[in-house]
């Protein structure tokens, strides 16, 4: 990044950020604050997951970056703009945990204590949480839906919080969408890094699923927006050969009916979880994903089908 002895030139974009710090209260600087936060968030993720050193990465650096990510997540959560259903204590530290303790283990059960099951549970519950709005639209009874799944792990916040916050969420989403047109590429680039290690195994594999998981967990709407990038790459590497997610989900999404992302990310999240878990999950998912052909079909999938998927996720 720095030429030897070369004069440092600051990116104009970032230079603009430097001066405006903090104080998310007033209007115009709130935008720049959010922008800066978003930038820092992206940089942090890139640092964690793009770096592939020959030697062990510095634990201090990893911990500091993780703390930064966690703080931003907390802030975003506090602003109430995101799904509180995602595990609050989401393992950004899992990324730290893994290279430290268990990087020798092979791919799937790469997280420290929680086995893949909670992650799938997390995904399932996330799915479930995401499903709630859909269920709300069709059936005005979120509570039954919430309690129907026995698998909700303790980690998850009640998904019932979601409906009231839909409005603030969507408005925040729109706001951030205006501000950050370029972060999609950043996320795609970020996904590239961890993606490339899918075949390498060893320390690479454990970090990659966490990278993807990390990509989903932080409740950043912008991140959700850019998840499509993740999946296209996922599909293209052949890992999920049976799935044609990009065709199905991201071609022409009619967002007028669903003015927030959870539904998109729901199936996305589920698919994202697939590389992490066992291959069976993949295969069970495949038939379901391949069924719909029209772009907006996943959103119109029957509740029962989604329910079935959820059970599959929860069950394995």
């Amino acid at each position: 990044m720095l030429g030897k002895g070369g004069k440092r030139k600051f990116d104009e974009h970032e230079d603009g950020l430097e001066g405006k710090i903090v104080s998310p209260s007033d209007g115009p600087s709130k935008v720049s604050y959010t922008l800066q936060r978003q930038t820092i968030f992206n940089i942090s993720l890139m640092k964690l997951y793009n770096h592939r050193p020959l030697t062990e990465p510095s634990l201090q650096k990893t911990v500091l970056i993780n703390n930064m990510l966690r703080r931003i997540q907390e802030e975003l959560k506090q602003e109430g703009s995101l799904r509180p259903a995602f595990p609050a204590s989401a393992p950004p530290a899992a990324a730290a945990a893994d290279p430290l303790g268990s990087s020798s283990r092979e791919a799937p059960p790469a997280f420290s204590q929680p086995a893949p099951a909670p992650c799938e549970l997390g995904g399932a519950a996330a799915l479930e949480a995401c499903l709630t709005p859909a269920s709300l639209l069709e059936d005005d009874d979120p509570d039954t839906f919430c309690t129907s799944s026995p698998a909700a792990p303790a980690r998850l916040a009640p998904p019932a919080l979601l409906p009231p916050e839909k409005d603030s969420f969507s408005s925040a989403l729109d706001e951030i969408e205006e501000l950050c047109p370029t972060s999609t590429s950043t996320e795609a680039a970020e996904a590239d890094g961890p993606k490339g290690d899918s075949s390498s195994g060893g320390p690479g594999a454990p970090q990659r699923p966490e990278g993807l998981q990390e990509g989903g967990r932080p409740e950043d709407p912008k991140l959700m927006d850019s998840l499509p990038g993740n999946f296209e790459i996922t599909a293209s590497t052949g890992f999920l050969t049976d799935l044609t997610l990009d065709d199905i989900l991201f071609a022409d999404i009619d967002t007028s009916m669903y003015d927030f992302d959870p539904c998109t990310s729901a199936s996305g999240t589920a698919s994202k979880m697939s590389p992490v878990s066992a291959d069976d999950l993949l295969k069970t998912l495949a038939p379901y994903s391949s069924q719909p052909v029209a772009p907006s079909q996943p959103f119109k999938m029957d509740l029962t089908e989604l329910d079935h998927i959820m059970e599959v996720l929860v069950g394995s």
Partner: protein
Amino acid sequence: MLLSLPALHLQTSEHHPLFQLPHGRLGPWCSPTGSPAPLSCETGCGEGTWILVCRLLVPTQVSLLSMEEDIDTRKINNSFLRDHSYATEEHFRLASFSLPSSLLHWSKPPPSRTWTVVMTYQQDYLSPCLYPLSALSDIISTVEFNHTGELLATGDKGGRVVIFQREQESKNQVHRRGEYNVYSTFQSHEPEFDYLKSLEIEEKINKIRWLPQQNAAYFLLSTNDKTVKLWKVSERDKRPEGYNLKDEEGRLRDPATITTLRVPVLRPMDLMVEATPRRVFANAHTYHINSISVNSDYETYMSADDLRINLWNFEITNQSFNIVDIKPANMEELTEVITAAEFHPHHCNTFVYSSSKGTIRLCDMRASALCDRHTKFFEEPEDPSNRSFFSEIISSISDVKFSHSGRYIMTRDYLTVKVWDLNMENRPIETYQVHDYLRSKLCSLYENDCIFDKFECVWNGSDSVIMTGSYNNFFRMFDRNTKRDVTLEASRENSKPRAILKPRKVCVGGKRRKDEISVDSLDFSKKILHTAWHPSENIIAVAATNNLYIFQDKVN
């Protein structure tokens, strides 16, 4: 590709036969050139001015390239260094061209107290076919004076330790006082491979700590990320001659040819300095060792990694005692790591360790076996006006040092140096801004990872001046009594003859005065992380990437 390391550090004296060239000794390689060039600079420090005593270039590593094939350079270099006492003639022949020429500046001490350049070493590569190879391995990663200041040890990224010895004062050459010449070089650590994690273990020397001298030999501890080694550096100037069963070359004699018996006698030989590893303390750290500290009882020492601190006895290498463990049961909850640790200079039961959250804990080993509960906790409350995304990262302490008196501790975080009184835990007694102009650039520094740079800080012998490094090869000194400070630069350009070392200034505002440098022109790849101060005199050693500068304050 030729190996130049030993030949470059040749001495005029007879004291280093180790590097004796087959064609005879080199002529004096430190000789005055031209007329005396007074090099001085005035500082506002009240300490006078600093002069460059010597700039010693750690030579870049080159490899032997045979005609037939490419030889693994690393292997050759390392083995050469290890067997330096048995270096063959061939090695030296190949290296013989690389004669350094040094420029010695005699400076007449000006009336006031000034820092002047005593000596500069410059390398002249006479042969065009010398290619410095793997220059990275020569980045100096630690600098440390021993307890008398006679020896200066540097460790580099390639796992080598180079020890410099101060030239003894002699009546006829009083000006030579303050020169440091190479005393010994050895390969301390080798790169290793952790098969379980499929990761390399760097051979970079993280820290060197000297033991106080108890006999004729010198002992030092050197550590990389995982292993601590105790090295003995000793001189040999006599050898036995006249063995009965062996001839002069060491070959066994045929007993039938022995007709008389004789008693072997010790005859003087050319001085040889040899370094031998006496202890290897391995396999005790899961995480990367960042500090080692010798206890004042001189029997134990501690090694600290990111999450644990172990107490060792020098005599026992297969066991260590864990005295601090901050590893959480669930690694996902990890938010804080240990960044530095040091024993109290006088109380062998007390030590401090700093964390990545800007806190310092003082522990007393008498309180309990596992010192997870601190005796004192030093933390300054956060300044709300300076709060930013990076508050936590810049508060991470990169170095902690006890004062020589044992009453204060000094901590270095990214932008400041703080002095704490051990008796006051809630805030430091002094705070010095090292490069506050970087506060507005933190986002970019975060992106290019400079924000994670670990600067060290040092006290002078009397605890009145503290020094630390910065970017652009700047280093800063703060006088605690007069509250004055100075910024100096350690660079090649300023060490030329007739050059005047000036205090530097970084301008923050729009108007840049003539000798000032603007923040945007700072070179962030030239950082001074490691410095050392002589324990009793005003001599400092500054490591700038792969150059070592020695400055001295000349008092009249």
